[in-house]
């Protein structure tokens, strides 16, 4: 049994690992490739800060949406007239212009996230090429499993992808479905 299992594992290894003394060299090379991934850096500096950056972007966009809504609510609900209304509009417009500065901050945060994702993708590609990886059965974490089951059962797939149905298309579908 053990010999059979051993032969099978041996057969799965690249050529170098099957040569005498090759296994140790292969393991050392694999270890170097894994270390080259910089897993601690990925988990800490790349993914770790990406969460913070995304939270910040969400917070910033929410704040700006609040400013815009407050402005609209204030102006629509205002009973001021003439010069008083003009002053109110000017004051609120300046507030909107100030709030528009959020784009600079969120842009910087999003750029950092994009760079991190590129770095992660590149390191994974290099690692995959180095070890001649082939996808087997993918092990999903708890978060992915929950998400996947909800996607299937409740079609919780997030905002429609580009090319998804338009309002007119949906209206026609609803009409046809009776």
């Amino acid at each position, binding site marked *: 049994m053990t010999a059979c299992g051993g032969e099978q594992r041996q057969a799965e290894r690249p050529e170098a690992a099957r040569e005498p003394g090759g296994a140790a060299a292969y393991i050392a090379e694999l270890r170097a490739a894994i270390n080259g991934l910089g897993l601690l850096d990925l988990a800490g500096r790349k993914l770790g800060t990406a969460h913070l950056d995304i939270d910040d972007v969400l917070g910033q966009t929410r704040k700006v949406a609040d400013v815009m*809504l407050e402005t609209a609510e204030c102006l629509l609900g205002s009973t001021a007239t003439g010069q008083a209304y003009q002053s109110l509009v000017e004051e609120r417009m300046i507030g909107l212009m100030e709030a528009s500065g959020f784009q600079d901050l969120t842009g910087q945060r999003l750029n950092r996230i994009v760079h991190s994702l590129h770095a992660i993708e590149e390191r994974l590609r290099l690692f995959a090429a180095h070890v001649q990886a082939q996808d087997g059965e993918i092990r999903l974490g708890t978060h992915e499993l929950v998400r996947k089951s909800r996607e299937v059962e*409740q*079609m919780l797939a997030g905002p*429609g992808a580009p090319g998804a*149905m338009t*309002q007119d298309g*949906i209206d026609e*579908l609803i009409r046809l479905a009776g």
Partner: protein
Amino acid sequence: MALDTSLPILVVDDYQTMVRIIKNLLKQLGFEDVDDAADGTAALAKLKEKKYGLVISDWNMEPMTGYELLRHVRSDDVLRSLPFIMVTAESKTENVIAAKKAGVNNYIVKPFNAQTLKAKIEAVVGI
């Protein structure tokens, strides 16, 4: 087509900004009696407490989605005929068909404008 602006409306969305946008648009259309709930579970509780004339619900919410809320409403003897509009970013054909099969009265895709909201409300509860 005219709208009965005394109609009590329940807006269901877990994103407070969207709730505020829809409530403001409804206010502009003349609706004053507008409540909100942050997900399907909270909405069901409100629907049991007060008689609403229309539900405008998002699809993607946790823990109970708008789709699940719709199914609950349609299987409830008291609520089954309550007009229900889904307002969502879910614009995939299968989602629209699923919502229609579950009994949705109309379906609005985000982002939308005031005119679309008005037209859909008129189509569902216009007099």
